[in-house]
């Protein structure tokens, strides 16, 4: 089971309302390389992961991604709070307003809804861990592009923290992959 902590993993402050920035950042909430996809992918892969180290890594990184989902949600919430309909329209969020008002939703930067087609569980530990490593790199690149788009230093600070986490997760999945390759080699009989 999970237990909730009534705090963010990393503090989130924004300088001002910024609807344009929120429209782009929401891709890390419900986009293809976002935090929801990452968390659900890793937690679901735990069941077929053969080693104890692999299961622990998937469980714990999958859990940390939920904390990142809340950080991204908080960014979007704070950047769009009190936005007028005119401001939402001007930022290209007229369609979002029609379907969701100011509610958050799991969409990418272009408004496409989240789908399980973003993620995979192959059941093969090598394939799954390599997918996860690729995903961490794609998320790192996405945060890079978001940092390039950001004109709010306080938001950029949070995006930098999240980008760094992708690098650490990539490293841990790589170590897990190396260990599993040794584990699988040791099981071969000639």
């Amino acid at each position, binding site marked *: 089971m999970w237990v909730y902590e009534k705090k963010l993993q990393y503090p989130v402050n924004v300088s001002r309302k910024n609807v344009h920035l929120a429209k782009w950042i929401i891709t890390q909430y419900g986009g293809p390389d976002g935090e929801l996809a990452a968390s659900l992918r890793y937690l679901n892969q735990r069941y077929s992961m053969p080693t104890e180290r692999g299961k622990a890594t998937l469980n714990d990184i999958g859990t940390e991604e939920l904390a990142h989902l809340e950080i991204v949600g908080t960014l979007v919430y704070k950047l769009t709070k009190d936005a007028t309909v005119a401001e939402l329209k001007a930022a290209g969020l007229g369609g979002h307003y029609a379907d969701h008002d100011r509610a958050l939703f799991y969409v990418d930067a272009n408004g496409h809804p989240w789908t399980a087609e973003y993620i995979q569980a192959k059941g093969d530990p090598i394939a799954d861990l390599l997918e996860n490593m690729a995903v961490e790199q794609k998320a790192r690149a996405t945060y890079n592009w978001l940092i390039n788009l950001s004109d709010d230093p306080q938001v950029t600070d949070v995006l930098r923290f999240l980008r760094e986490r992708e690098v650490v*997760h990539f490293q841990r999945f790589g170590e897990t992959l190396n260990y599993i390759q040794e584990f699988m080699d040791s099981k071969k009989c000639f």
Partner: protein
Amino acid sequence: MVVNNSCQALLCRIQQVEFVALELNLYLNTHPCDQRAIEKFNRAYQELCELKNQYEQQCGPLMNFGFGMNKGNTWLWAQQPWPWEM
């Protein structure tokens, strides 16, 4: 119990120490024999326990489902602000 400046400073310290523990946890998942890292993890755990206990006494509940206490006779969990509102 109100979330004031000293509570914010305490929360900031909890975020820092918990991040240390989380990082060591992920590292130890793939380096389970590193004794120095285990010692550091246990030290972070001790400090975190003390900080969270202090936060709950002074500022309100941090965790639900019985992982934290409710001080006083009003139910604080559903009254205090949520992380995205702070």
